[in-house]
């Protein structure tokens, strides 16, 4: 049986389309950028922590559904936010999403499950 985490091949790039599919997610904004490829994911509800991430091609998994999550992604060049545990994207967030071109995905999984699924499918951790 080959089920230990060391067997996971972190070969990197994954399309946002695949991210949404793996998480049973609903793309609520930025569908036109769904073929973009990303390499890393970072999971946090603390935006100050997200703002310390230096890598490129990162997506954010968060339970923080507010305008600051979008502003944080915008400043950090993060191209996609996954809102876990059915957190809903508000009208204000949608408006900002359209302006900044950030892909917004709502998904039912917990932060732990969503992170685990993406990790085991090869998306790399930032640290």
């Amino acid at each position, binding site marked *: 049986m080959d089920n230990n985490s060391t067997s996971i091949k972190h070969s990197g790039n994954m399309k946002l389309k695949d991210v949404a599919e793996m998480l049973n997610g609903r793309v609520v904004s930025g569908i036109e950028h769904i073929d973009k490829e990303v390499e890393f994911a970072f999971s946090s*509800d*603390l*935006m*100050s*922590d*997200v*703002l*310390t991430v230096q890598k490129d091609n990162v997506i954010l998994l968060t339970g*923080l559904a*507010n*305008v*600051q*999550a979008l*502003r*944080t992604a*915008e*400043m*950090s*060049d993060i191209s996609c936010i996954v809102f876990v545990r059915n957190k809903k994207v508000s009208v*204000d967030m949608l408006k900002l999403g359209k302006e*900044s071109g950030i892909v917004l995905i709502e998904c039912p999984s917990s932060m732990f499950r969503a992170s685990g699924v993406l990790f085991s499918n090869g998306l790399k951790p930032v640290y």
Partner: protein
Amino acid sequence: MTMHFEYKIEGGDFTRAGYASSQVKRSLKQLNVDPKVIKRVVVALYEAEVNVVAHAYSGIIEVYIDTEKIKMILTDKGPGISNIELAMEMGFSTATPEVREMGFGAGMGLPNIKKNSDEFKIESEVGIGTKLEIVVFIKQ
């Protein structure tokens, strides 16, 4: 050539926090500044903007852009900071639960602003307000 922008910040108004940083990002992109430099500028400016919203009553952001550097001056009216050395420490925070609900208030803002700037100055007077000066050089 120097470009100059100015923005007002309203204390407590979290819905607009980040508007100025977003506008600055747009301008720097149009000027074809290196994305790595833009990220340092707007990450620092955004944390500083959030600090005015979270901790002060009102403030002004002045941004000066020339061929060598981007200089940002944030001047606020607010409670000020009594111990700047302590405030600069990672993890020190007086943020309210409301600020923490917004995803901030972990005492990481000021250290990250400093880390992203090439020059950083902070002055504060208790009961009057706080002034931050952040410089990022365009050519590394």
